[in-house]
């Protein structure tokens, strides 16, 4: 039996038409049913539906039936030989047929409009960060005025998370960077017999540039992302609303401890990174370049001015401030669904890393001009 006649058959007689339905009209056969209806060829005549042969009818099939008959311009005149449950299904779908028509077209924007929208979004983001920074600064001033409002417990907990627990990964990464640098410089310096200059390069390079950047990127990925995820989840579970309702300030309770902890933690981690980076270089300097640890340390003593270390530490504190502000603000601005926590966390990491690099470039120029 071919499928068309299997599902439906149209008979026309004396200005009237009857559509005989048969078989299982179910969602799983929807494609065949729809094809059969299309092939039956609808007329504009008053149409009677005959359901004597129907063994099953679900709403999806009823929808296909009613849409096809409506497309043909036929008015359904009556239902014949339908059992009660099939009639109810037809009526349920018929009552909602209009709701299925309204096609809401998604709006598509041209490239120029997209650029414009991104620029506006970006401006909003920057304004938001700036105002959040202002509020944090005000809250910080408040804490400085009344030190008792500083939440010491939260501060130490955050410090443990952001500093103490980050030490192993910082040590590992900077140590390896030190090793790599010593190799890289060593190969060049050996050509000129200037082995000892490797120590200068590694010491100054690590303390001034590499350790602050590398450690800041690690912390951006570790703590910046954690701040966003923590505060975002607290916002979703209405904990932040509860803090406000209890008459506390989320700034004081959540943001300031994180901010202070990170601004203290990052320079300390950078200092750890300085030592560990130089240790890495020292480890390979002996076998590779015949520089004994004693010579290495003496050379560092003689050549590494304390200014270089300070430059790295000051930069680290500024990086930390940016990471903390971005991380906290992105957490407090998640919209009310779980997806936006993921989006904001990703955005935090990207923003933090980009701002660290931008700040570093700015500092390079600044210190150059200041002659430090």
């Amino acid at each position, binding site marked *: 039996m071919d499928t068309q006649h299997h599902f439906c058959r149209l008979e026309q007689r004396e200005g009237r038409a009857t559509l005989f339905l048969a078989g299982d009209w179910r969602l799983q056969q*929807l*494609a065949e049913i729809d094809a059969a209806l299309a092939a039956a060829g609808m007329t504009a005549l008053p149409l009677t539906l005959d359901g004597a042969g129907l063994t099953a009818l679900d709403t999806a099939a009823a929808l296909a039936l009613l849409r096809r008959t409506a497309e043909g311009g036929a008015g359904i005149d009556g239902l014949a030989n339908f059992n009660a449950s099939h009639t109810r299904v037809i009526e349920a779908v018929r009552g909602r047929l209009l*709701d299925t028509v309204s096609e809401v077209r998604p709006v598509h924007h041209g490239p120029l409009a997209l650029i414009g929208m991104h620029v506006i979004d970006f401006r909003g983001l920057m304004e938001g960060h700036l105002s959040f920074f202002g509020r944090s600064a005000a809250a910080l001033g408040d804490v400085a005025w009344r030190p008792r409002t500083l939440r010491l417990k939260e501060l130490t907990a955050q410090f443990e998370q952001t500093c103490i627990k980050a030490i192993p990964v910082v040590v590992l990464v900077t140590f390896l960077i030190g090793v790599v640098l010593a190799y890289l410089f060593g190969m060049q310096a050996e050509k000129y017999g200037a082995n000892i200059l490797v120590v200068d390069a590694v010491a100054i390079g690590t303390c001034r540039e590499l350790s602050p950047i590398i450690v800041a990127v690690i912390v951006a990925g570790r703590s910046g992302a954690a701040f966003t995820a923590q505060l975002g989840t607290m916002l979703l579970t209405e904990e932040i609303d509860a803090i406000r309702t209890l008459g506390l300030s989320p700034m004081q309770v959540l943001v300031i401890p994180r901010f202070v902890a990170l601004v203290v933690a990052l320079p300390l981690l950078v200092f750890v990174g300085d030592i560990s980076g130089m240790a890495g270089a020292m480890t390979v300097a002996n076998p590779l370049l015949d520089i004994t640890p004693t010579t290495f340390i003496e050379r560092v003593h003689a050549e590494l001015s304390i200014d270089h270390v300070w430059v790295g530490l000051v930069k680290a504190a500024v990086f930390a401030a940016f990471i903390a502000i971005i991380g906290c603000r992105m957490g407090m601005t998640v919209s009310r*669904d779980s997806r936006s926590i993921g989006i904001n966390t990703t955005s935090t990491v990207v923003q933090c890393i980009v701002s660290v690099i931008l700040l570093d470039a700015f500092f390079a120029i600044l210190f150059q001009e200041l002659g430090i």
Partner: protein
Amino acid sequence: MNAAAPAIEVDSIVTRFGEQTVHDGVSFTVPRGQVVGVIGGSGSGKSVLVREIIGLLQPTSGRIRVLGTDVWSASEEEMAALRQRFGMMFQDGALFSSLTVEQNVATPLIEHARVPPHLLGPLVRLRIALAGLPTEAATKMPSELSGGMRKRAAIARALALEPEVLFLDEPTSGLDPITARAFDRLVRFLCDDLGLTVLLVTHDLDSLLGIVDRAIVLSYGKVIADGPVKEVCRVDDPWLQSYFHVRRMLEG
């Protein structure tokens, strides 16, 4: 496919979490075309039971059949086929937050049914209309919907594949009484007009009295009453009596 099998058969289910026994021999059968309510105090294992019936959580012992298929001994293929024949509405909707309502409802259709492309949109909107959501809700994200609308959107998604059985976990919790009654009418419509079998877990006395054909009462791991609500409320059990007593007090 066993067309004559009852919708749900639960046979001496025992569930233990460590030392704690949640179900201690729970049995009941739900024939097709009924709205059955499962009630019981908090922690009496109602939601656990539903999760076991739909195959999310394995009971310690006992047998569960849905539409004739044994949920815990069926092969992966049989289970996949069965999953298309029932729908589940989780307590807070469990809508995919990255998709619009329309896309949420379309997901099962795209994955499991061969719907002609020109019918997909209308079919999705029919589901949304059947669940009683306004058309504008179709393009919204779940986060933009109220609690009641999220539940309706979840029903629309559960209805996508024309299920024969629908499980509702606390469908009216967190809704105002007016929205809750509208929800009750929706459930009744699904059962009466579309012929679905509905198993719902509820605390809501009004939906219980208003729409449920039969109530199953769980207490201390056992079914202590099973039957029409009028009979169930006469059962001599302290918890059940205080449960219905609240109602009698209100009505004076």
